[in-house]
């Protein structure tokens, strides 16, 4: 039981990343090639998951979709991490008013989920992979700021931190040499969970047409296409949905597994 989260999570995450990487070099069929004569083929050979309403090979489209998911996830989580962690550390190490200001800002940002930000950006400058990734990233900043702040406060109250401050180490130096290494593990856990949420958000956005524009294949767009034929071919909605669920589940389980390794006492509680 102790390892099941970590192992299952790692396998699923590795699977998604692998699919995305391989799709850069090779897919069984062209994931954008419309073949009117091969519409809505059932799973079999050579189309192992069948074809969609355009005659595109479903498995190839899912592989190419994995690439977009990984792209958006990396940009979004990277952005949230680079902005959120310094803010959280600063909030924990600075004066009360600055700390309050940062955390109030995080509270306000909570009222702007990724989708609302993406809608604003899409309305203002047009939808693209980048607007989606930025929207998801900005929306994830508060989570990182909170986690980083809580973890930093814990480090700050430790004896070695007191010793470092007594010895006259500057706050910045202390943050880099003592705080960051000690909060890194918690941040990784948050990053894994945020990656899962980023995938969900990307799927929702591309389903609504607020992310990567066509013809680039995304899992969300596949579901939108599937919805158009849902009365005749409901099974079309199955594979892209399973791909999303497996990817998100993978990152969530990986995050849980990492946290279990980090603090076995928390396993029961959180």
């Amino acid at each position, binding site marked *: 039981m102790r390892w099941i989260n970590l192992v299952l999570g790692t396998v699923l995450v590795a699977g998604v990343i692998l699919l995305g990487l391989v799709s850069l070099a090779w897919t069984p069929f062209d994931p954008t090639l419309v073949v009117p004569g091969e519409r809505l083929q059932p799973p079999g050979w050579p189309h192992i998951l069948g074809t969609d309403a355009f005659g595109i090979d479903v498995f190839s489209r899912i592989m190419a979709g994995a690439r977009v998911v990984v792209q958006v996830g990396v940009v979004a989580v990277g952005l949230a991490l680079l902005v959120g962690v310094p803010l959280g550390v600063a909030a924990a190490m600075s004066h009360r008013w600055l700390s309050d200001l940062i955390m*109030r*800002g995080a*509270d*306000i940002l*909570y*009222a*702007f*989920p*990724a*989708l*609302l930000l993406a*809608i*604003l*950006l*899409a*309305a*203002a*400058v*047009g*939808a693209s992979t980048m607007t989606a990734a930025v929207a998801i990233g900005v929306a994830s900043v508060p989570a990182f700021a909170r986690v980083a702040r809580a973890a930093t406060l814990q480090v700050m109250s430790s004896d070695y931190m007191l010793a470092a401050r007594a010895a006259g180490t500057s706050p910045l130096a202390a943050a880099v040499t003592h705080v960051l290494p000690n909060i890194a593990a918690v941040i990784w856990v948050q990053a894994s969970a945020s990656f*899962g949420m980023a995938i*969900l958000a990307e*799927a*929702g956005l591309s*389903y*609504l*047409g*607020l992310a990567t524009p066509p013809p680039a294949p995304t899992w969300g767009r596949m*579901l939108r296409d*599937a*919805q158009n034929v*849902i*009365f005749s071919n*409901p099974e079309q*909605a199955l594979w*892209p*949905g399973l791909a*999303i*669920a*497996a990817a*998100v*589940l993978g990152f*969530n*389980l990986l995050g849980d597994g990492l946290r279990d390794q980090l603090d076995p006492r928390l396993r*029961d*509680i*959180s």
Partner: protein
Amino acid sequence: MATVRAVAVRLAVLVGSLLVASFVVFAVCQALPGDVAQQILGEQATPEAVDALRQRLGLDRPFLVRYAAWVGGMLSGDFGSSYLTGVPVGDLIWPRVAVSAWLIGLALLLTPLVALPLGLVAAVWRRHWQGFVATAASQVGMAIPAFWTGLMLVSVFSIRLGWLPANGYVAFAADPAGWASHLVLPVASLTIVQAAMLTRYVRSAFVEVLTEDYFRTARAIGWRRIPGLLRHGLRNVALSVLTVLGLQLAATVVGAIVIESVFTLPGLGSLLLTAVGQRDLQVVQGTVMLLVVTVLVINALVDVSYQVLDPRVRTGDLR
């Protein structure tokens, strides 16, 4: 006295948050897109025509003046008019509020009703198969997007079984039964995902109560496990449920936008998506602001309600 002060502080924070949030919305919609008048008229328009339009729309005024005018207008219920169609934004929004409010409200109401028993099972039997099943169900529920749940429910209950309509909406006043049947699947799709998330927190809150000294005291005076947990745990669990529900509110609101698109419900979400498609910034700006105000106000109410639920906070002895 402490309570009054705490509520006043929370109110001040709310007003500040609303100002910041409205500024962000306004800035993104008005500063990022560039010259709106030029875009409306196209590249070939004469500079005079563009200037005239700019003047007519009030775009020649300084940015902050326009912002103040927009905020002032909203306070008196005037959300401005669409640059494209000239229709007042309020006229577009208000008829659609009911649809979204029903969807979000029912989902938020059902979410704890599903999550509490599931979380209780997951906590009490956490070393047995019942708990494992409940925990696994919550994990899977968190991983699937709400709109996919919607599609799956449609393919089973609308297409295969033919029990419920796959899309559309009927007003409650026109046909209560039709209204209900059109809302079942959208509300269910939204609830399943949110309840899965909440279950996780309910579980950990109950597990925490199980390890509390006061729960052991309750057991020592003769409470059986589950009645004792409900009697002494529920209030404590309610506090964390309330916090998480507050945080989930924003997710539920945006979830509703997607769900409205799946089931073609004529709510705020579909209005917003249409407006984005047409780059109708005044409509986007007004609708987004209404949603953000809702989230911020309800979160403030949640904070204030702690005062009622936790006597340690209420009597001002803590925090």
